[in-house]
């Protein structure tokens, strides 16, 4: 049962924690899993593209180039071994993100100003 399992999102890779303990399969021979981030063009952020297996970082970059940039999708690649990603826990979502809900005054549209007002 995974009812009471606390998922620390990203303490392990998605694969390791998503259904941890349910697979008895021996994965020691597998190349580690890597997350791939691609910058689609200079001036933009690297964005998560997906994941892949590779023996080391150099191979992960080479594989990422073949798997995720066959159509000029990127000009730069980051790879990080999935087990090094740390992320928030979905169970904490309420605590983390709800406080922002009642602070709409942080958005410019909150303020009612006359139409004649220009350049603001």
């Amino acid at each position, binding site marked *: 049962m995974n009812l009471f399992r606390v998922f620390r999102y990203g303490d392990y890779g*998605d*694969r390791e924690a998503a259904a941890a303990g349910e697979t008895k399969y021996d994965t020691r021979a597998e190349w580690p899993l890597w997350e791939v981030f691609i910058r689609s063009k200079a001036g933009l952020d690297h964005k998560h593209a997906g994941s892949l297996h590779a*023996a*080391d970082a150099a191979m992960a970059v080479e594989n990422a180039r*073949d798997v995720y940039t066959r159509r000029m999708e990127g000009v730069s690649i980051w790879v990080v071994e999935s087990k090094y990603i740390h992320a928030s*826990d979905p169970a904490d979502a309420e605590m983390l993100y709800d406080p922002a809900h009642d602070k709409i005054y942080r958005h410019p549209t909150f303020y009612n100003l006359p139409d004649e007002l220009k350049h603001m």
Partner: protein
Amino acid sequence: MTEPSLQQQFDEKVASEIAIEPRDWMPDDYRKTLIRQISQHAHSEIVGMLPEGNWITRAPSLRRKAVLLAKVQDEGGHGLYLYSAAETLGISRDEMIEQLHSGKAKYSSIFNYPTLTWADMGAIGWLVDGAAIMNQVPLCRTSYGPYARAMVRVCKEESFHQRQGFEIMMTLANGTAVQKKMAQDALNRWWWPSIMMFGPPDADSPHTQQSMEWRIKRFTNDELRQKFIDVTVEQARLIGLTVPDPDLKWNEATGHYDYGKIDWEEFWNVVKGNGPCNKQRLETRKKAWENGAWVREAASAYAGKRRQRQQEKNAAAEAAAA
């Protein structure tokens, strides 16, 4: 928290079209259904490279060869996107591959048919990829986030696959009498297996209803099949080829084509492993896996050695600094 509340949260999310992500709570059967569907989809991409790989060295021109290579490379990529998506559900890559090799996991039956002539490259692109696209476009909105994202990528890339296939068929259909005959022969052989690709009729599809409720599937097998037949019959007409179904006719009342009886016995027979190429396809995959073992091991050993050397270097530098 009690189970009903987790179940309710899950149901609410699915109902309001909020994607389910890897760490969200999900019913065990939802997870199992997805692992089965996504891994079989991945296997289909990988095994699907074989019938076309057969023609790469015999493509009739450099242009056709470059295109076919790119297409087969795409299929490999699609398999990788999908394996990664399945891995977020807690199954390992090696386990999925093991399931393919042992026959526990299936792949699309269509890839158990042989590719006898060059026209089959056209028919596969046009019909098999066409049917796959019909199936995959709604999957871009499937309820499981990683699967949906993989499908968006796949669909973006797959549209050229169908177009290049149709172009091959069109060229043959407009060619010499022998070429046109070759195109018609390919259509004759691939038509029925292609429309079987959508799976058994709704009445005999055990997973459909639950998958629709979970919004993994958006349309039933029969709905997608009908949609495919309606568009493809028109496309065949455009290039002067005849769909090999004497019962095919436009139904004014329904606004769809009526079609003849599908030989489901053949379908189940191929699923069970008795198609023309089942054995050969699996053997090829197993051999590739076994023959590649030393490469996987060598790469791991090399990476380990490099890591160790780096550690020794760091330790030496630290000692020198101290």
